[in-house]
């Protein structure tokens, strides 16, 4: 299966700061998603982004499929952004199996 690596593993930010989370993957993919897991364990789909750039409010994501990485940008961070961010990919011709990274744990302090 595809190897997915996320960095950094942990991040502590002051409220209002910006951050960039990275996801590297080892093979071609036809599906890449970013998720936020809140402190109650709920996984929320942030972006479906196998290529290109998308923005949703203070969050944006860019995937460069040819170089096998994706970036999640968080601007003007808020305490509610705290939680774990996961990247998940599915490979071409690999059916519907998703491979997850081990996540980036973000803590935003007031």
């Amino acid at each position, binding site marked *: 299966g595809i190897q997915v690596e996320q960095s950094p593993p942990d991040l502590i930010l002051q409220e209002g700061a910006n951050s960039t989370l990275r996801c590297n993957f080892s093979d071609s993919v036809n599906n890449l998603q970013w998720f936020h897991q809140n402190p109650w364990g709920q996984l929320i*789909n942030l972006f479906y982004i196998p290529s290109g750039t998308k923005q949703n409010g203070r969050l944006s994501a860019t995937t460069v499929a040819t170089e096998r990485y994706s970036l999640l940008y968080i601007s003007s961070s808020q305490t509610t952004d705290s939680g774990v961010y996961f990247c998940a990919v599915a490979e*071409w011709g690999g059916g*519907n*199996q998703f491979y997850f990274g081990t996540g980036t744990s973000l803590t935003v302090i007031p």
Partner: protein
Amino acid sequence: DVKVTQSSRYLVKRTGEKVFLECVQDMDHENMFWYRQDPGLGLRLIYFSYDVKMKEKGDIPEGYSVSREKKERFSLILESASTNQTSMYLCASSLAQGNSPLHFGNGTRLTVT
């Protein structure tokens, strides 16, 4: 909005018990998945199903079985629960197309004593 509902938020069972975790989705999704999540290991796929009565093993199927008798329902079964199956269990669903988003339930935190 897609809704994926897991029957229990918290569950405590004894070693050796047979445990059923239920998941229901309301968007007519073909694909359904069961993951477990453990600290430092991320999410690992146990089983998935792409159609009624169809199932495929994921990365860690040992000690688990699944059932999909209806399209909207996917059950995870622990035949004889063990303490190393204490974990967070997450159900997800998606459309059949490979470029479809994955939608998760709220998770079931299972403790086996």
